């Protein structure tokens, strides 16, 4: 055992010792406790307490000012039977699936493209991060300029190319497509960074060995690259799923959830229910259902990470 301040070995080095029933409150433990206290306090204040309060609100018929009276699970019942909720749930799924896999495919393609050396590679790498670094409020404004009205540049371009004059934000289906494409544009740099980091950790000799055995580029990709980055891929999918389901500004700033609620995901529905219709209980119930879906999905994917360990 190394020399260390009294009791350090319990916390720092002697981690594989059997856990004592009643741990002594040594100075090290106190230090560790003090170091983690501010973070735990914030966790309690910003997450735990509001979550408890939200649980309370979801079974009451209160407003933003009053607590209201107990109404049981009727807020959840009303939510789960309303058409607006299911429409929003459907769009959340579409938006998330397109957002996660669209940005992953683009990010993967670019990471592969930028892996080999060619002139200007460093500059491209930095420039391609811009969509992610530029604030969403700014890029949403820019998208508004590009697509909002029939005299905007994009509809004009479509017209000139003989593709008709689609109403990008006024037609429900086109609005959904526009929002999804915009989300992929915002998120692909994140995926590119994740995939690049994972690819760079693969030992080059593995590829050399595969080439000697006659593996084609495609075989190297599906046989080496994809399995080797599987762990990081699952993580990036989990993170992006969370980002997409919770994404408020990308959608709200571009379409406001319209036209006719066609681009309203659960998070926008929850916001509107609370802050525009002033129905706190039902709004919080929607947010809770959303939370539940997220926890389930990320737990399932989290298990996949554990399976996808290197052989």
């Amino acid at each position: 055992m190394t020399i260390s301040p009294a009791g350090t070995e319990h916390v720092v080095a002697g981690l594989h010792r059997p856990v004592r029933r009643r741990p002594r409150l040594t100075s090290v433990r106190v230090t560790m406790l003090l170091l983690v206290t501010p973070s735990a306090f914030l966790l309690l204040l910003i997450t735990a307490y509001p979550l408890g309060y939200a649980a309370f609100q979801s079974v009451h018929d209160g407003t933003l000012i009053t607590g209201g009276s107990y109404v049981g699970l009727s807020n959840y019942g009303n939510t789960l039977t309303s058409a607006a909720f299911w429409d929003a749930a459907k769009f959340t799924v579409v938006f998330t699936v397109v957002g996660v896999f669209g940005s992953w495919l683009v990010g993967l393609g670019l990471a592969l493209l930028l892996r080999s050396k060619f002139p200007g590679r460093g500059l491209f790498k930095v420039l391609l991060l811009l969509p992610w670094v530029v604030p969403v409020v700014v890029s949403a404004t820019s998208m508004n300029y590009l697509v909002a009205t029939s005299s905007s540049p994009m509809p004009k371009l479509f017209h000139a190319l003989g593709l008709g004059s689609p109403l990008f934000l006024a037609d429900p289906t086109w609005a959904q497509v526009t929002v999804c494409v915009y989300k992929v544009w915002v998120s692909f740099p994140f995926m590119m960074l994740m995939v690049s980091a994972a690819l760079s950790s693969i030992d080059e000799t593995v590829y050399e060995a595969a080439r000697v055995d006659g593996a084609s580029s495609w075989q190297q990709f599906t046989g080496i690259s994809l399995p080797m980055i599987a762990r990081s891929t699952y993580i990036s999918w989990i993170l992006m799923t969370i980002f997409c389901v919770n994404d408020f500004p990308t959608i709200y700033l571009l379409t406001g959830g319209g036209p006719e609620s066609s681009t309203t995901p659960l998070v926008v529905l929850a916001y509107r229910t609370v802050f525009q219709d002033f129905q706190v209980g039902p709004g919080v119930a929607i947010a809770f259902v959303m939370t539940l879906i997220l926890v389930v999905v990320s737990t399932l994917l989290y298990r996949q990470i554990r399976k996808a360990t290197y052989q």
Partner: protein
Amino acid sequence: MTAVDERVLAASSGSAPLRANRMRPRRQWWRFAAALGITAIAMIPVAVVVYLSLRPGTGSTSTATITFENFTNVFQATQTLTWLRNSLMVTLGTVVVSVAVAAPAGYVLSRGRGRTVSGYSLLLFVVQSLPVITSVIPLFIVFAKLGLVDSLLGLGIVYVGVSMSVATWMMAAYMDSVPLSLEQAAWIDGASVFGSFLRIVLPNSLPGVLSTAIFTFLVSWNDYLVAIVFIRTNTAFTLPLGLESFFQQNVTDWGSVMAIAVVMTAPPVIVFGTLHRFFSVGGIGGALAGQ
């Protein structure tokens, strides 16, 4: 001869470098063209912002191709300067407090073991996936009682809380790479655990600190949802709210709108442009995978 045969032969006969020299120019050209094309398309929304901000606005008498009058207009006639100051204050406050809170917590996650520590780290994972909207609604009610609604202080507190779990992971991931032996040497010399954290681990994880700082900077600078819920008056607006409200009222005044947009985009681009080599998204993923 098929492509595969050629490669096998080239590799086995030891002429790989020669082949590579022959193949590279054409491949490079193809990759360069593809990267250029994709980057050009991806840059359109960004380029539009910069271009429109430099064009003479509607009602302008200027005939110049490029002008800065949108910027002078915006700074004189709108509250952009106030919004910029608000955004800077909230963001810098959030970054400093986040790092100050996440660094010690990250140290505990990195060095400590046992059920309590791993439980806490799992808790941070769960918290990270919770929708901000769920906690924002009750917080609004609580903050209203405390007089923290419509205040930059309240906004900063929420940002620190929202970014804390990921920030803690990022710090823990970097501190994992600081060898324990460095600390043990300090302990031999009589340093306390807190002393070795402050003088050994923290200075050695400066890239981690910067990475965490960039992350929290981006979170609070770009936030719209928390700000729209908590901030009500024009003078307390942060830039996202200011830009959005100005845009709603002056939809056709693209020059001024985009000038504010450029003012808002510059700080994150400068921060990221100068510090991006310290920023590793892989760090976030790695931290998560280590749980």
